[in-house]
């Protein structure tokens, strides 16, 4: 860090309100050339708005006050024309959703070249040549990824590289990266973060990295600020902050990120509840030739898996490995093309129609708390939906009581039964989803990325709830996730899945402490780690 240089960017008492709703309150921060500033906060903290304020890309109805000084220029008073020559040229920005960040009808080459041609007077051919060079720099060699490719022909990680190429094509002084890896797999995330760090080092560029992941910040950022509700609560060098954890909110975030729920780990091995033997699931692929049989894609390739009553099993893997397909096959929502599923030692009929008796034993909690519920039904009706599978579902008053007690057991109140789902926050909705899964007292609950979309502090609470319910109700869990730290905190055994197959299995702790398979090792190495701190609990 060069203390002798003046900061490249400094925000002083920046306040923002949109349509008279205050968003940012007196935000002040600084970034020096060649260093990385991390902005950490949960959803709604205002971190993205801070970035948009620097870029002057705020929505209509915004009113901004305070000073934003970038390389001697007062951003707040610049005209739109002046900003246009700064954006892409002196400041580059990378956004969160790589899948939708690129124009689907333009080639990647022309999208990168456009940025170059916009700010430098070069011929079209020259701009394309320069674009080719930049794409090589970000890890997309021209031989494999010619400039004539379209975005839909690339994966999420590859698209994000193109977005980065656009952002750094003109070697800007500052790069703002707003949650650049949140939507990506663990290994891809590691690659992208490494790429960003490399770019910073190579051209002495400053970077602002916005994220909700404390572990990422601890590994990448030199300095950091912590935001909440539009305020900056804590700031300073990363090392110092993690060593001391002086601010209570910082400490709370840290604790939540490394939270391990208390569980009753004494479990005798009971008879197996669910056994998958040589399970195969296939999808027909889009036709490549006009005639001849359709090719099948094997999403699940001869998988063996056993879950015992009361045990919590984790299934980790990256996107596309087949874990969601497996869950759907187990629930009877997806057809099985080979192998068998046994429940309580009895084989289930293959095909999609599972008997009601079977559905009684298994329920599911999904990832997205916002699309898990029919927006037109009240909570009581939503929670009671699985009662359909019982032979004699309770009606009337008995039903209402059951709904009420179930809601109470997930930490909500009976009064919530009459509300609509849009009145609840993300964390509360997941609790309602758990209540829905719980109401018929299944033996197994499948949690498909159930906490991935939640803020860190909320996540910790939901994990506590799940642990407590497992103990009190004797539930078994199949915990599917790409987030290794979460899986570690709540499971007894773990299976690692790649390309439709299980590559390693074993007790959770032994897998995490001494992984055997190459892929497992790669996954664990790629995951960012929180530093152990003296003031850490446990």
């Amino acid at each position, binding site marked *: 860090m060069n203390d002798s240089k003046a900061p490249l960017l400094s925000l002083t008492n920046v306040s923002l309100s949109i349509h008279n709703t205050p968003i940012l309150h007196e935000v002040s921060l600084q970034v020096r050339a060649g260093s990385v500033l991390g902005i950490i906060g949960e959803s709604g903290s205002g971190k993205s708005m801070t970035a948009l304020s620097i870029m002057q890309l705020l929505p209509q109805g915004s009113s901004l006050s305070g000073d934003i000084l970038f390389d001697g220029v007062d951003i707040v008073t610049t005209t*739109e024309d002046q900003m246009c*020559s700064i954006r892409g040229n002196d400041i580059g*920005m990378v956004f969160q959703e790589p899948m939708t960040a690129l124009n*689907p009808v333009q080639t990647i080459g022309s999208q990168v070249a456009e940025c170059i041609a916009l700010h430098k007077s070069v011929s079209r051919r020259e701009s394309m040549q320069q674009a080719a060079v930049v794409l090589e720099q970000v890890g997309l060699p021209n031989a494999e990824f010619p400039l004539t490719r379209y975005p839909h022909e690339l994966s999420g990680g590859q698209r994000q590289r193109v977005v980065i190429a656009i952002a750094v094509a003109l070697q800007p002084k500052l790069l703002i990266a707003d949650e650049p890896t949140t939507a990506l797999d663990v290994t891809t995330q590691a690659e992208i973060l490494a790429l960003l760090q490399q770019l910073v080092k190579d051209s002495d560029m400053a970077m602002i990295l916005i994220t909700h992941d404390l572990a990422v910040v601890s590994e990448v950022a030199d300095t950091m600020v912590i935001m909440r509700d539009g305020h900056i609560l804590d700031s300073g060098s990363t090392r110092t902050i993690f060593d001391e954890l002086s601010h209570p909110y910082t400490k709370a975030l840290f604790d939540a990120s490394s939270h391990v729920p208390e569980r009753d780990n004494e479990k005798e091995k009971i008879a197996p509840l669910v056994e998958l033997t040589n399970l195969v699931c296939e999808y027909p692929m*889009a*036709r490549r030739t006009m005639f001849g049989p359709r090719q099948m894609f094997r999403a699940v390739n001869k998988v063996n898996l056993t879950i015992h009553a009361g045990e919590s099993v984790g299934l980790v893997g990256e996107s596309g490995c087949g874990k969601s397909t497996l869950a759907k096959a187990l629930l009877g929502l997806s057809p099985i093309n080979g192998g068998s599923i046994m429940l309580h030692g009895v084989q289930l009929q293959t095909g999609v129609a599972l008997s009601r008796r079977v559905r009684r034993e298994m329920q599911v909690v999904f990832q997205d708390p916002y699309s898990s519920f029919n927006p037109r039904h009240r909570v009581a009706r939503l929670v009671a939906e699985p009662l359909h599978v019982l032979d004699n579902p309770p009606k009337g008053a008995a039903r209402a009581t059951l709904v009420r007690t179930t809601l109470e057991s997930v930490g909500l109140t009976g009064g919530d039964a009459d509300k609509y789902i849009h009145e609840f926050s993300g964390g509360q909705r997941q609790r309602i989803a758990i209540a829905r899964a719980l109401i018929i007292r299944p033996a197994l609950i499948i949690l498909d990325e159930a906490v991935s979309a939640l803020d860190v502090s909320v996540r910790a609470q939901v994990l506590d709830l799940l642990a407590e319910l497992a103990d009190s109700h004797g539930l078994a869990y199949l915990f599917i996730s790409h987030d290794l730290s979460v899986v570690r905190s709540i499971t007894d055994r773990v299976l690692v899945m790649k390309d439709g197959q299980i590559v390693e299995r074993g007790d959770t702790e032994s897998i995490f402490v001494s992984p055997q398979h190459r892929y497992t090792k790669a996954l664990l190495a790629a995951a960012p780690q929180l530093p152990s701190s003296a003031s850490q609990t446990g």
Partner: protein
Amino acid sequence: MLRYLFKRTLILLATLIVASLVVFVTIEVVPGDPASYMLGMNAEEDTVAALRIELGLDKSRPARYLSWVTGLLTGDFGTSYTYRTPVAEMVADRMWVSLPLAIFALLLSTLIAFPAGVYAASRRGGITDTIVMALTQLGVAIPNFWFAMLLVLLFAIKLSWFSAGGFAGWDAGFFQAVKSLTLPAIALALPQASILTRVMRSSLLDVMNEDFMRTARAKGLSRRQALWKHALRNAMVPVLTIIGLQFSFLLAGAIIIENVFYLPGLGRLIFQSIASRDLIVVESVVMILVLAVVLVTFLVDLAYAWVDPRLRSSR
């Protein structure tokens, strides 16, 4: 891309075949005996029998269908009973009125709607946008034949800029012919232009909210540059769909408008044929109109693939 083309061509052919069956069944099979239908209730038995043989009604239905379709493919549309002239001749003459009229109206509609829609979307919420929305709201509600009558009243009768009706004929010169199609084309084009403007505007507004527009701005593109270079092409797919649909409405509308302007097009032919119960003519003209509509749909499908590369690959 090839696979896409192949599939669309197959659908085109299949639609045409099924359509021809529908037309044939509706017009020749359902009325029972077309011959007696055409001649009316007071006809003599001999005349009916003679007509039956002339129309080939003594053959079986599938045979009649096949001979009709083969005739269509070779350009032989049969002979009109009322006029005793080959239908193909009558249709050819009339087609040169109705089709250019529909195309003229389509061009007008597109030329008005594109700039209006783009302008309104880029100035959303402003005074221009409100005016455009109000005008188009009115435009979609106007019956085009009524508007035609008003146009005649104002421009032909009061101002004498155009003639009140009739078609000068292509022999009288391109400009003269087009002039006599102008008022009808405007009448047809106005409601369609209003619809298209709204579709263009709303499609653009949807696209402007997409993430890649944000990336475009972050590159340093101004709002206007981002709209022209990125938003427009992405907004085209719904617009193309409407243009395709519009052609079939315009063709149908042209049939009605010809009544107001006394144009010798397919419309008058059809109505005269219905009045004189000349089923042969009705059958063939309907089939031609269906063919025109299906062809335009096919062209629109091709245009989709050109505009949106995602449709070209085999994914």
